[in-house]
Each structure stands twice: as structure tokens, then as C-alpha cells.
């Protein structure tokens, strides 16, 4: 077979084993994947994964209660607890669960895929400690001070308890230390020549996520440090318009770290589940570079109706630059399923256009979670995102439930579902424990993905009727004039509620199975994991 190489330098398959730089006894070879596992990094991957699942549970309980309040037929919580739990839900789900997972992914993508040791154990300890303390302090501020019901956006002049800002800042500094450890690990891998040719695509994608993370964290510091000193009474209140622009450099970009990490996870799961390899290395890497250069500008679409910034700035960011990041998602959205198709066709599943899709390993939760994540992200999150990010259309959608309908499809149906698929391999490969109740694990991605699909569609269509986001009571109970929405909107809010309950059940199943596997699962010793 003739071989062409695009982008990266060719790597002869019969090259000698690369060098290792681990201390004696600090590396093992995974019996399932054949990848080297740095045992120091392994410990921190475990710690970050466990912390991620703990905060996922906190955020999920808040999510259920919030969804049951947005469903007018139930309308569960009073307004104080509704806004309190909405604040906690956003922070725990969008920041703590996902970034703990991402730091674990960075350690894996650098040490195992490049065959190197972790650069600094001390940095990893400091990173985890700061992140854990920061997340706990922020949750304490939200739940126990009764002075932090400011939602995740915490727009000034809403003022939260100082511990709220201090916790987020500590978490961000911890995450930054983890990212620095990742870059240092890339450096020593290159220096010690532990790999041949270019870094694997998954590591390249993780590097893109790490670069975006640095920019994100700097924006967070610029926005939150003045808010923190103001909450202490040391400085004047920051300018509200300036704060919103800086805050979205944190708030939206943190979701772009998620997108980039999620795409890396797609490539990884494509490889481990069906043996897929990227369709074209140069194009895939180019798409990650587009993310680095342009995806941060997408944060501008949060202030499309803000009078404080000019039309030229809005139009340039959201109608030109942002589409270069959309192009990157379109490239990945094509190359990832195409690489799966090529791999399955090579295995003989060549019947018709979609014979490969019918024969895909849908009983493998790693595969089903990954592919459902791809479909929900692309068809629901992607289509709605590009449309809502258009300046003119944004006028009829801004601050309606259509916006959460979009980002629940990207961040929850996309990123969280992909990370769940990753967990079905992380637990057997890193914790070396088997999942129990495998039939339930096979069902879980469908339950969670289906629930999120209902939730997102319910939100999107209710928002199309004009139902506002974040609002505690869209019926305006007790108002002197008749207000509220017609039956169609209520039907969609009901779909939102049912979807929320189904997704919560799917999430609870994931947490229970994962906790059971980690602590009580059958040990995997000197043998590969049982194939899904």
C-alpha cells in the first residue's frame, strides 16, 4: 500500500521503543492499551476525576431542583433558593466538574500519550489543593453566607460575599498551576525524546485547550480581582460594562476549553473504541489552531444587545471572526465521524451509505456516549449556536430560554456526555477497576443523552415563545394584569421538566456506577480490561 504523509513527519512503525524518563518503579504499561502510565500522574488523574464527580453530583442535584422550578406545573422552589441553586448549578457544572476533568485529561494526554513522567509532583499537589479549596469555599459562600445569590455571571453591581470571589480565584490559580505542569511535561518529553515525530493529535488538542485556558484564566483574574477588592470595601465598584466584557472572557472561554478538550476526547474515544485514526493530521491540527486564534471572540455574542459597545466591534467579532472558530468545529464535526466510518469500513462494514453506522459498537458506552455527544453537539448545539450568535437574530433570542437551550446541548449533551464516555475507559485503565452492572452502563449514555435532548429542545422552543431565561416565575403570579405565556410555551416547559428528570436519572446512574466501580469494582490485575 502506498503511503502518503500529510502534515506531521512520518513515523516508521518498526522504530525502536522510545526512551523513558521515569524514576524506577514509577511507570507501568497498561495491559489494555499498551500505553505507558506514569504512576505519579495516575494519582493526580484519579484525584481530579474523583473531585470532578463529587462536584458533578452537587451541580446535578441543583439542576434537578431548578428544572422542577422552571416547570410551571411543579414550580418547586421559592425565589431565594431558586436563584441560590441556579448560582451553584452554574458554577459546579460549568466550572468545577469540567475543569477538574480537564486537568486530569491534560495529565493523561501529556504523560501517557508522550510516554513521559509528570514534570512536577509539587505543582500537581498545589494545583489540586488550590482547586479543591477554591471549589469548596465558593460552594460554602453560595450555600451558607446567604450573600452570594448573584448567579454564575455575578454581574456588578450585584455584590457577593468576598469568599465567593476568593474561592473562584483560588480555583483558577490552581487550574493555572495544572496547566503549567502540563506545559512543563510537554517540554521534558521533547527534551528527553520520549516520543518520535509530532505529538499525537489528542495531545495537540489538549495543548490547544491549555492555551485557551491560560487566556481564560487571565480574563477571570482581570474581572474578578477588582470585584473581590470591591466586595472587601477596599476599592470602588468596577464599571459594569467593562466587567461584563472581561467576565465573558472567562465565562464563555471556559466553555471553549470544554469544546477543545471534548474534541480531543472524541479523537481519543474514536481510537480506543473502533481503532479510528484522524482523517488528515494537518487539517485536524489546523482546526485546533483556528480555535486558539478565534474561539475567544465568540464571547462577544453575550453582549450583542449591550449598549456599551459599538456595532462595528459586535459585527466584527460575531459575524466574521467567530465563523473561523465555527469552521474549526465543522472540520472536526466531519473528520471525527469520517474517521470512524473509515475504520469501520476497513473492518468490512461496507454495506450502503450507513452500514458502518448500523454496525458500530452501540453497546459500548464509551462509543455511544462519544457519538451521541457528537450528534447532539453538532445538530442541536452547533446549529442553534451559529444562529443565535448572528447579531440581528440575537435581538429576538437574547435572554430567552433559547440561550440555555443552546448551551445545554453543547456543554452538557456535548462535553459532559463525552467526558462520561471517557470515564468508561478511565476507571478500568487508571483506577484498574471494572464497572459493575454493565447492562446499566450500556443504557446510561442513551438515558442521559435523551434527557438532555428533551431538556434542550424544551428550552429552545419555550424560548422561541419568548419565555425568559433565569426567571423564577414566568407566570408573574399575583400581577395586576394578566401575564404569562400560552399553552404551547407551557407544553415546552413541561418537556424541559421531563427532560431534566430523565437526564438527572441518567446522571445519577453514571455517578452510582462510577463510585461503585472506583471503590468496590472488581480489580484488574495483570490483565486487560473486559472489553465493552
Amino acid at each position, binding site marked *: *500500500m*502506498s*503511503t*502518503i*504523509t*500529510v*502534515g*506531521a*513527519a*512520518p*513515523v516508521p*512503525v518498526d522504530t525502536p521503543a522510545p526512551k523513558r524518563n521515569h524514576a524506577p518503579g514509577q511507570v507501568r504499561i*497498561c495491559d*489494555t*492499551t*499498551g*500505553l505507558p502510565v506514569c504512576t505519579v500522574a495516575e494519582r493526580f488523574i484519579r484525584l481530579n476525576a474523583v473531585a470532578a464527580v463529587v462536584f458533578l453530583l452537587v451541580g446535578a442535584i441543583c439542576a434537578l431542583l431548578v428544572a422542577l422550578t422552571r416547570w410551571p406545573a411543579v414550580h418547586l422552589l421559592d425565589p431565594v433558593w431558586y436563584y441560590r441553586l441556579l448560582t451553584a448549578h452554574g458554577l459546579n457544572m460549568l466550572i468545577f466538574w469540567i475543569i477538574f476533568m480537564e486537568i486530569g485529561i491534560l495529565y493523561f494526554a501529556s504523560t501517557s*500519550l508522550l510516554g513521559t513522567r509528570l514534570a512536577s509532583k509539587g505543582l500537581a499537589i498545589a494545583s489540586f489543593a488550590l482547586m479543591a479549596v477554591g471549589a469548596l469555599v465558593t460552594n460554602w459562600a453560595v450555600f451558607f453566607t446567604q450573600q452570594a445569590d448573584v448567579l454564575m455571571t455575578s454581574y456588578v453591581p450585584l455584590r457577593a460575599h468576598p469568599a465567593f470571589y476568593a474561592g473562584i480565584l483560588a480555583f483558577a490559580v490552581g487550574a493555572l498551576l495544572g496547566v503549567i505542569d502540563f506545559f512543563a511535561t510537554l517540554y521534558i518529553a521533547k527534551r528527553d525524546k520520549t516520543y*518520535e*515525530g*509530532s505529538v*499525537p*493529535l*489528542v495531545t495537540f488538542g489538549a495543548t490547544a485547550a491549555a492555551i485557551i485556558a491560560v487566556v481564560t484564566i487571565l480574563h477571570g483574574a482581570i474581572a474578578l480581582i477588582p470585584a473581590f477588592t470591591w466586595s472587601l470595601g477596599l476599592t470602588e465598584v468596577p464599571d459594569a460594562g467593562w466587567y461584563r466584557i472581561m467576565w465573558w472572557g472567562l465565562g464563555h472561554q471556559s466553555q471553549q476549553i470544554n469544546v477543545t478538550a471534548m474534541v480531543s476526547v472524541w479523537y481519543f474515544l474514536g*481510537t*480506543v473504541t473502533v*481503532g479510528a*485514526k*484522524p*482523517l*488528515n*493530521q494537518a487539517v485536524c491540527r489546523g482546526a485546533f489552531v483556528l480555535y486558539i486564534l478565534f474561539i475567544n471572540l465568540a464571547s462577544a455574542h453575550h453582549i450583542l444587545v449591550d449598549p456599551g459597545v459599538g456595532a462595528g466591534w459586535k459585527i466584527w467579532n460575531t459575524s466574521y471572526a467567530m465563523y473561523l472558530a465555527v469552521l474549526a468545529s465543522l472540520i472536526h*464535526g*466531519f473528520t471525527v*465521524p*469520517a*474517521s470512524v*466510518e*473509515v475504520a469501520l*469500513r476497513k473492518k468490512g462494514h461496507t454495506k450502503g*451509505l*450507513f452500514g*458502518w*453506522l448500523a454496525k458500530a459498537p452501540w453497546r459500548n458506552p464509551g462509543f455511544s456516549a462519544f457519538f451521541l455527544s457528537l450528534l447532539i453537539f*453538532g*445538530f442541536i448545539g*452547533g*446549529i*442553534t449556536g*451559529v*444562529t443565535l450568535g*448572528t447579531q*440581528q*437574530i440575537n*435581538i*429576538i*433570542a437574547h435572554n430567552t430560554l433559547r440561550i440555555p437551550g443552546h448551551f445545554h446541548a453543547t456543554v452538557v449533551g456535548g462535553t459532559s456526555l463525552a467526558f462520561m464516555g471517557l470515564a468508561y475507559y478511565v476507571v478500568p485503565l487508571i483506577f484498574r477497576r471494572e464497572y459493575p452492572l454493565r447492562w446499566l452502563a450500556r443504557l446510561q449514555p442513551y438515558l442521559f443523552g435523551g434527557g438532555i435532548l428533551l431538556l434542550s429542545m424544551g428550552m429552545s422552543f419555550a424560548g*422561541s415563545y419568548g419565555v425568559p431565561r433565569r426567571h423564577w416565575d414566568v407566570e408573574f403570579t399575583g400581577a395586576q394584569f394578566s401575564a404569562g405565556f400560552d399553552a404551547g410555551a407551557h407544553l415546552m416547559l413541561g418537556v424541559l421538566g421531563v427532560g431534566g428528570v430523565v437526564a438527572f436519572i441518567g446522571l445519577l446512574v453514571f455517578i452510582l456506577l462510577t463510585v461503585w466501580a472506583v471503590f468496590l469494582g472488581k480489580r484488574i490485575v495483570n490483565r486487560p480490561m473486559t472489553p465493552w
Partner: protein
Amino acid sequence: MKPAEDIRRQQQESADDHHAPGTLVLALILLASFAIYYFANWKALADVWHVR
């Protein structure tokens, strides 16, 4: 073949690595869905925002 070997081989590409007709159809369905949703939104905007 173990994933570690798959990852080492990933930087080699051959011409038949690019034959993915099913994915092409999926991509076209996505683009058609986007076009319908996008222009339906422009129609909705035109319904509430009259240009005289």
C-alpha cells in the same frame, strides 16, 4: 492492535483513508438543517421587525 500502536500509526495516511460517503451525507443533512433553522429565524425576525 492495541490503541498505543494505533496512536503511533496515526501519522501515516493512505489514499483510502479519505473514503467516507456516509459521513458526507450526514454533513449535508447537517447543512440542510442549519439552512432551514437559520432562515426560519430570519423570517421570524422579519415578522416582528418591519422595515418600512
